[in-house]
């Protein structure tokens, strides 16, 4: 029983995600100029499979047709690091939502994360 008590105490934990950037705003973008942003998810192994067992990027961008897209940060396709790339085509507000699960372990429950970032796209300089 003495052995079980610490296990029970540890098992009360569940995985909790933290993010970089911590705030909910990514750098502004400018129409016609290449954009780069990065989001890191910490706190455990990010689950990245859909219901069919296929790998998925744990985020999405809205609106989708504004010239920005999400991709993995490296060739290992680790789902805890996402990049936002592309060249915005029009002004506006873009929402980047990262959401998914963190794997549990022998001593901790799985966890869920859901965070939305905002990118403001400003109008680029127009040549006279």
């Amino acid at each position: 029983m003495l052995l079980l008590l610490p296990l029970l105490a540890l098992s009360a934990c569940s995985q909790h995600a933290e993010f970089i950037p911590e705030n909910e705003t990514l750098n502004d973008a400018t129409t016609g100029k290449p954009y780069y942003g990065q989001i890191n998810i910490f706190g455990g192994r990010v689950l990245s499979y859909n219901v069919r067992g296929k790998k998925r990027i744990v985020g999405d961008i809205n609106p989708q047709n504004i010239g920005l897209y999400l991709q993995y940060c490296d060739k290992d396709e680790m789902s805890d690091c996402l990049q936002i790339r592309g060249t915005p085509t029009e002004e506006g507000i873009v929402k980047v939502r990262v959401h998914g699960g963190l794997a549990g372990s022998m001593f901790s429950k799985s966890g869920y994360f859901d965070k939305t970032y905002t990118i403001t796209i400003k109008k680029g300089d127009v040549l006279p």
Partner: protein
Amino acid sequence: MYVQAVKELWQHGKTKIGELLIAPGDGCQHPTGNFYFDDATPRISGLDWMTLAGLRDSENTVFSFDHLDSPTAGVTLWHNLTAWFEKAGYELVFSNVGITQAGVQGIRDLNEFVIKGYKVVTLINGGLLKRADSNFTVPTHWIVWEGPVTQDTAGYISLNLFTWGEVNNWIKPGKDVQFFINRFFGGMVFKPLK
């Protein structure tokens, strides 16, 4: 073998691999909780629940694995794991697993076996792995080696291993042998099935 086991679990609620009987209780066959997160992505695949939770529940006498969040019932100690392998037909040929770190000699011993083609299963702290955070250095995680532990000219450690459904060099990059052995608790070596 795996497909056959899953079919039998689905159709009959039990299966046998060698002498390893997987016969989860009613609670495990009809678990409470949600298989999906709020965004409809899976927390665990149904197949994994049937085989892994089913296996674990078959031998749990104190706790029941009947809820999606039953982590304590999922704690697996080395004697359980060894028994599963042996019942499935594997032969244990070496073990240096325990609650204390196995040290550099422990790595050397297991390296020799894995190079010879034996199956090596080791207990680690999850913080040894990429993208897994842990403030503790206690044993929390089982892995299967796909090759030996190696050290590059800068002293950094690599190990191809299976965990979370993928074979990869999961070891955190840029970590030395001291980092590794602080999170390494030895393992078991099994003779491969013929």
